């Protein structure tokens, strides 16, 4: 890799993909409750904990394996108290894992290589199942290969045998399952097809692992018909009859080596029923099978058996979104890991035994299940654009589609909001005694007064609080056992058992700033003196006999929190108006001794000493001085707890207003709250500190609030309102607003005030002829009809996100691309939509194609005319005030006409199917479905497009955008992102009318583009947009992937940084091993070696490495650990959030 390229990018994932590969259930933590492990597409493993009290799913932790996970299985070894996890990935290794709750990660137990890396036809890993008694694992490839592993236990150690082969040539495997045979020899069943002879024969084949002889043999094979696609095993041993259920088109068969086969018919809705998912819930003495059809209908299948199975009964159960995995928990919950869209969590209400067994049915609203939680998911993202720093993404499939606007920020759920007589400036909550569980008083400070409210069932004003109400308050604190203190400008009121003791500053001197802990008080007077108090056993205040005098006025102070088991905080942080932060000791041996000074960029407005955890697991903490500056900058400086030395400052710009600070507890973690023009929460995610804005009012101040109804809330003031709220989920720092769409969105176009979204669904009968209830279709999907299309154009207001107009396309038309085009001659913008009639996919054909022109009318569109074309254009763009159309291999320019669009020029290029177009000046970049990008230039004199440069690699372009006049970033179907640039000389020649030679070079354009960057995402990129994600941040490229991936590529600005990050990345590759044994360099260079991109996701893992490894890496870079961490975090804050 050259270290001196002209462009170097830094990749950061903002939102990992939400499309699931597999989900498994088990007691992975060895505790009483069950957890769910979900593998998200490119190798993210997540542990979720369902809470059966609240009915919520909560993510415990997430781990990036930097590999493509192919299959998951859970198994419990005999006598073990917890389940282990078996994973197959594109590393070609079988990995056994266990959960480590303390470090919030997965630990690798075993790593056994079995085949080549990558996802190949013959490499096992596509299927993975575990014997129900946890004795063996079987993994299979799509073709031929099957391997069986014996797993066992040696003391606490998990052992795995060498694989036993069960290969059979010329067979394809459609499904695999482990048969429950109790404690007999483990048995596996595979749905296979022998393709060598004609006609090919399908069968369910049973493979037995003979534990005594240690080999695998084919035991039995039952022929099934060619429509079969799914297998599920049913309980055996003492729990049931054993055997498998095989599912095909409208039918199910019970197959067992020793029993006759029994068939039954699956109920049908309006098309054939295929089973795509199943789960077997086991109760005490019975079980049933819940299967799901490709339309989402659930059927309850009961197996009647005595000695052997006698009958299968099938009843319609409910309809939920189509799932990849269904999981039933012991507590009566169903987790639906959906194929697309939000994940659902249901509770069983009843078991649907009274439903009819008729062979046809109509879907009905949820009856047996009740939806209790929805986990938002973006997949599939079919397109996106940036609106300011918000991402507007096209998400979802068919009737469950939506436009989703992603705003960076935490969602807040408001509990109470009430009006105050005037605008409050500060707010505190306090207990009355140390033993109080909840807060009792809510104290508000106004410009010239104070208000005390009691917290209980209702919030009421307290008249006899003993507080001075005619002056604004500086601090409120519950002291010692039962005392309470109010500090105001003119003194300290110390209330103990109803007795009031007062302390006054010298005459003519005010108290400027105050800070407290439950045992200490420090105040700064207007004469620059610091007075320090501590309490004794009887809760009396004792003033320290010396006052420290500062060199300039004090603007902020903080004592910090008292660590559990300690009597005092030994450090006092003081902010002075000479732009300094000073740390003073308040330890009894060295009281008021100045320990350290740090110069700040401006005067501190607010200060707080607060220890934050180093990682999300909260194993260790570091003390920080959090400083809010008057200029709206927030500074976080590390403080040495013993020496008070300050180091490692990080700055964040929050908004043009002084920053006020506070603390809160969110999801069990201590967080710092900062209030400027927006409210921000600073918390640790993984191992990095993140500042996230709240999607809420601009709060002036806030603090933690704890009452019986709301133990972990926040109270805040903004304007004349007082609000109590909770942070819903600190994990999801993107707030999503969505607008439902009718059909799978194909493209989004931005107009001046609106978004225009076109959608088209294949194989459905459109119900939108007259008034219909879209909710019904969102739940059950559209009626299926082969060859039919449902398609529409929707207009969405870009500010309010409301659908302002919908145009349903009739006559079996489907829209595939759209363009907002301003025609120069007409001085008017139109919306052009490319539609095709009777479109068939594979093979691609249609009876006619048109360009529909719409006039834009204030949130509405009005059909103007249609223009017939020979083929459907998949890409359009505005070009020189006219419309540029990319149709098959032809570039065409249209001018607006009275009756139709007027063809102005047409040029054929040496490409297959144009799918993307980008233009700048006279230059047009053509993205082709399989021939990468071609640079073309328009020659006005010849009225033609001339291709002058193309690519050396045939890429299947899916998304593309221009970075500058010569540079293009694009993505392909195989999950690669690449940047190509036209050489400078070629670029100059192309702009010169006579510069280009038209001779083809090696059957392509006369010149070639250079590849600058190449990177593998393992997700198909669907959009690239340029923009800054943060206030004053770098301009980055934001990309989305079909599986729900959202990430940014940020340019690394200096050679110095390029060298640093590449060195760090190399060191990380050596020191951070993927738990699945995948080599990072190979993973990111899956198809083409990585070039010019540093994987920020890997670099950020630096924070979770053990201290000694961190130090080793930092040493090799000639830097300190802190410096490295700081660089990494700075890069993150500049590029994204």
């Amino acid at each position, binding site marked *: 890799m050259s270290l001196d390229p002209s462009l170097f990018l830094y990749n950061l994932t903002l939102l990992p993909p939400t499309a699931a590969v597999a989900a498994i259930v088990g007691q992975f933590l060895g505790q009483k409750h069950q957890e769910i492990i979900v593998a998200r597409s490119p190798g993210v493993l997540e542990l979720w904990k369902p809470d059966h009290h609240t009915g919520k799913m909560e993510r415990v932790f997430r781990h990036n394996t930097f590999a*493509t996970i192919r299959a998951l299985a859970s198994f419990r070894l005999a006598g073990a108290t917890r389940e282990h996890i078996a994973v197959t990935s594109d590393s070609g290794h079988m990995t056994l894992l266990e959960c480590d709750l303390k470090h919030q990660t997965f630990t690798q137990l075993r790593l056994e290589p079995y085949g080549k890396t990558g996802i190949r036809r013959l490499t096992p890993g596509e299927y993975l199942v575990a014997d129900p008694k946890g004795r063996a694992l079987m993994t299979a490839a799509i073709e031929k290969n099957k391997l069986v592993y014996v797993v066992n236990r040696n003391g606490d150690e998990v052992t795995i045998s060498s694989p036993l082969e069960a290969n059979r*040539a010329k067979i394809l495997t*459609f499904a695999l399952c482990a048969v429950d045979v109790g404690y007999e020899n483990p048995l596996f069943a595979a749905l296979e097809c022998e393709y060598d002879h004609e006609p090919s024969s399908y069968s369910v084949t049973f493979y037995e692992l003979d534990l005594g002889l240690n080999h695998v043999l084919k035991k039995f094979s039952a022929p099934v018909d060619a429509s079969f696609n799914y297998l599920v095993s049913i309980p055996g041993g003492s729990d049931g009859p054993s055997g498998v259920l095989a599912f095909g088109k409208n039918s199910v068969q019970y197959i067992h080596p020793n029993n006759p086969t029994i068939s039954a018919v699956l109920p049908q809705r309006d098309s054939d029923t*295929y089973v795509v998912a199943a789960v077997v819930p086991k109760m005490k003495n019975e079980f049933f099978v819940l299967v799901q059809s*490709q339309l989402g209908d659930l059927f309850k299948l009961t197996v009647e058996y005595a000695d052997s199975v006698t009958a299968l009964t099938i009843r319609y159960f409910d309809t939920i979104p189509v799932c990849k995995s269904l999981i039933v928990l012991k507590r009566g919950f169903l987790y639906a890991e959906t194929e*697309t869209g939000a994940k659902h969590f249901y509770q069983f209400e009843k078991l649907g035994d009274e439903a009819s067994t008729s062979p046809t049915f109509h879907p009905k609203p949820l009856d047996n299940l009740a939806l209790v939680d929805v986990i938002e998911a973006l997949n599939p993202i079919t397109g996106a654009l940036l609106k300011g720093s918000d991402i507007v993404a096209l998400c979802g499939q068919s009737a469950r589609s939506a436009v989703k606007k992603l705003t960076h920020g935490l969602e807040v759920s408001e509990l109470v909001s009430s009006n105050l007589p005037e605008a409050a400036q500060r707010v505190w909550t306090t207990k009355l005694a140390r033993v109080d569980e909840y807060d009792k008083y809510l104290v508000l400070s106004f410009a010239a007064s104070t208000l005390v409210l009691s917290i209980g069932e209702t919030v009421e004003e307290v008249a006899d609080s003993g507080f001075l109400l005619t002056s604004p308050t500086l601090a409120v604190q519950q002291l010692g056992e039962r005392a309470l203190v109010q500090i105001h400008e003119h003194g300290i009121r110390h209330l103990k058992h109803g007795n009031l003791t007062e302390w006054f500053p010298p005459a003519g001197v005010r108290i400027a700033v105050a800070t407290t802990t439950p045992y200490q008080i420090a105040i700064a007077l207007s004469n620059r003196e610091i007075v320090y108090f501590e309490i004794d056993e009887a809760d009396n205040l004792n003033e320290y006999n010396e006052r420290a005098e500062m060199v300039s006025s004090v603007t902020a102070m903080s004592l910090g929190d008292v660590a559990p088991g300690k009597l005092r905080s030994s450090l006092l942080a003081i902010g002075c108006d000479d732009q300094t932060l000073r740390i003073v000791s308040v330890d009894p041996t060295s009281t008021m001794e100045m320990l350290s000074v740090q110069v700040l960029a401006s005067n501190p407005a607010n200060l707080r000493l607060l220890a934050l955890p180093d990682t999300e697991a909260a194993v260790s903490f570091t003390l920080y001085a959090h400083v809010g500056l008057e200029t709206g900058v927030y500074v976080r400086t590390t403080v040495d707890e013993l020496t008070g030395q300050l180091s490692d400052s990080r700055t964040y710009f929050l908004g043009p207003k002084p920053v006020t600070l506070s603390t809160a507890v969110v999801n069990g973690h201590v967080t710092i709250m900062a209030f400027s023009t927006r409210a921000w929460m600073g918390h640790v995610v993984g191992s990095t500190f993140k500042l996230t804005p709240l999607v809420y009012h601009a709060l002036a101040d806030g603090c933690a609030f704890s009452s019986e109804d709301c133990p972990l809330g926040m109270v805040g003031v903004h304007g004349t309102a007082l609000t109590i709220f909770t942070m819903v989920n600190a994990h999801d720092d993107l707030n999503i607003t969505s607008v439902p769409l009718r059909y*799978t969105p194909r493209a989004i176009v931005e107009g001046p005030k609106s978004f225009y979204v076109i959608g088209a669904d294949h194989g459905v009968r459109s119900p939108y002829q007259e008034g219909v209830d879209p909710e019904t279709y969102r739940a059950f999907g559209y009626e299926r009809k082969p060859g039919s299309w449902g398609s529409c154009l929707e207009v969405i207001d870009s500010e309010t996100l409301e659908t302002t107009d919908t145009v349903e396309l009739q006559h079996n038309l489907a829209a595939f691309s759209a363009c907002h085009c301003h025609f120069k001659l007409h001085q008017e913008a139109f919306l052009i939509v490319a539609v095709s009639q009777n479109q068939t996919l594979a093979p691609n054909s249609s009876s006619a194609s048109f360009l529909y022109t719409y006039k834009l009318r204030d949130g509405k569109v009005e059909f103007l005319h249609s223009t017939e074309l020979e083929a459907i254009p998949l890409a359009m763009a505005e070009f020189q005030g006219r419309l540029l159309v990319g149709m098959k291999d032809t570039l065409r320019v249209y001018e607006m006409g009275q009756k139709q669009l007027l063809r102005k020029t047409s040029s054929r290029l040496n490409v297959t199917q144009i799918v993307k177009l980008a233009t700048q000046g006279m230059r047009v970049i053509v993205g082709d479905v399989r021939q990468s990008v071609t640079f073309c230039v328009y020659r006005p004199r010849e009225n033609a497009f001339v291709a002058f440069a193309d690519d050396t690699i045939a890429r299947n372009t899916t998304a593309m955008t221009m970075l500058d006049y010569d540079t293009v970033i694009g993505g392909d179907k195989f999950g690669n992102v690449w940047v190509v640039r036209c050489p400078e000389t070629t670029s100059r020649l192309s702009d010169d009318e006579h510069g280009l030679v038209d001779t083809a070079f090696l059957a392509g354009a006369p010149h070639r583009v250079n590849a600058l960057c190449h990177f593998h995402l393992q997700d198909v990129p669907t959009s690239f947009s340029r923009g800054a994600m943060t206030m004053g941040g770098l301009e980055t490229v934001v990309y989305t*992937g*079909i599986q729900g991936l959202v990430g940014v590529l940020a340019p690394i600005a200096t050679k110095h940084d390029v060298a640093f990050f590449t060195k760090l990345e190399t060191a990380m590759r050596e020191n951070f091993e993927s738990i699945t044994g995948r080599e990072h360099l190979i993973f990111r260079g899956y198809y083409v070696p990585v070039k010019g991109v540093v994987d920020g996701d890997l670099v950020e893992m630096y924070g979770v490495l053990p201290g000694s490894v961190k130090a080793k890496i930092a040493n090799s870079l000639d830097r300190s650990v802190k410096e490295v961490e700081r660089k990494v975090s700075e890069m993150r804050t500049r590029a994204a959030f």
Partner: protein
Amino acid sequence: MADKVREQRQYDHLKARHIGLGNADTTKLEWMSNVHRDTYASFAGNAALCLYYSVAMNESLSLTRTRFIEKMIQPCGPKPTEEE
């Protein structure tokens, strides 16, 4: 002669182990079928690709995957009947 037989046997053995192995006598259909099978296996195995197709076809992901494996049976049509 014996060498040729041995060579052939060795080739058959290797071919059984390494599917897709070819020699001068490999027919176009055989070669094409092999390439297509690799492609379809990749479509079925790569989750992102499979989802991409399933969204385009408006079909369940799992059925799209099954279709791809089905296509591996005879990706380029049946063997032509012997033309003498």
